[in-house]
């Protein structure tokens, strides 16, 4: 029973974050500087999710920024594909195939 209450509270905390400015406080009441800065949320958060997923990969999630980390080249290829083709499937395909080829070559 206790764990169910914990999970409910976890859900309430998460929902509260999601509701905050969408439903609880109107965005016009946020400080002006913060409102202007909000347009940088997307590039900041996406980059902050992408980079660690590349540099801390592998089973032990240890830091690896050497050329031996196949994900670095794979994401570079994907980034190039994203700029040239502007297509999500092509970007994923380019990155995954590069990674698999490099892993297959190394293994």
């Amino acid at each position, binding site marked *: 029973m206790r764990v169910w*209450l914990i999970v409910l509270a*976890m859900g309430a905390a998460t929902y509260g974050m*999601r509701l905050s400015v969408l439903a609880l406080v109107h*965005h016009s009441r*946020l400080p002006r500087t913060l409102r202007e800065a909000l347009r940088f949320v997307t590039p900041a958060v996406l980059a902050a999710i992408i980079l660690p997923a590349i540099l801390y990969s592998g089973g032990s999630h240890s830091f690896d920024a050497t050329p031996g980390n196949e994900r670095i080249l794979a994401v570079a290829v994907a980034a190039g594909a994203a700029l040239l083709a502007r297509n999500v499937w092509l970007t994923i395909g380019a990155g995954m195939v590069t990674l698999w080829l490099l892993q297959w070559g190394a293994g």
Partner: protein
Amino acid sequence: MQGASRRSEFLAGVRAQLPLLLGVTPFGLAYGAYAVNSGLASGLAQAMSVIVFGGASQFVGTRLIAEGVPAAVIVLSVALVNARHALYSASLAPFLDHLGRRWRWLLAYLLTDEAYAVVIARYQRDGSTRFGHWFFFGTGVALWVSWQASTAVGVAVGASVPASWSLDFALPLTFTAILMPMLVDRPAGAAAMAAAVVAVAGFRWPYGSGLIAAAALGMAAGMLTERLARTTRSERSAETS
């Protein structure tokens, strides 16, 4: 957009979410397997996917429950891990201003990293359209269904896709596809750069605080770059006049 209907917006949202499901499905399987292997009852493991609906925070919550950490610490940790959702909420709010309360409460429940990335990219391109909220709804439903289904399979089978398939890489790749076109704007590029450096440095900070610090410093870097550009521009125009 001409001729867009509720239905076409909904389906466009589902389609936009499909590439992300490539990475989300193995993640859901892994969560389901991890939860039952950590000793959570199957019903509770599944309920967490419905009640919390947030990948990384469910792993954190499961681990802390299994370790017998005090309830207040668990809830606070999950709140911190999901604090970035408040930023998403603020960032999307201006586009959803016109909606009634029921829609806003529904869409808030469906607000995740994956939905946010797809929806904000669309809204920044097309602005606030008449049925644009149906796009958000379609994206959210697609993600929700696949998250519940993959959790259920992970719970039932107790095993996940082998790590050697590297399917977890699909998620950063999809985000790369969304991020790259944004970087042509110099302040946005500065925001991404600063955030990436902080996120890598703070990867092991507790409760996802590295990610929050990265978002905050990235936003600050973007603002600063924009202000500097503005001052140089006005100085230049002052010289020429």
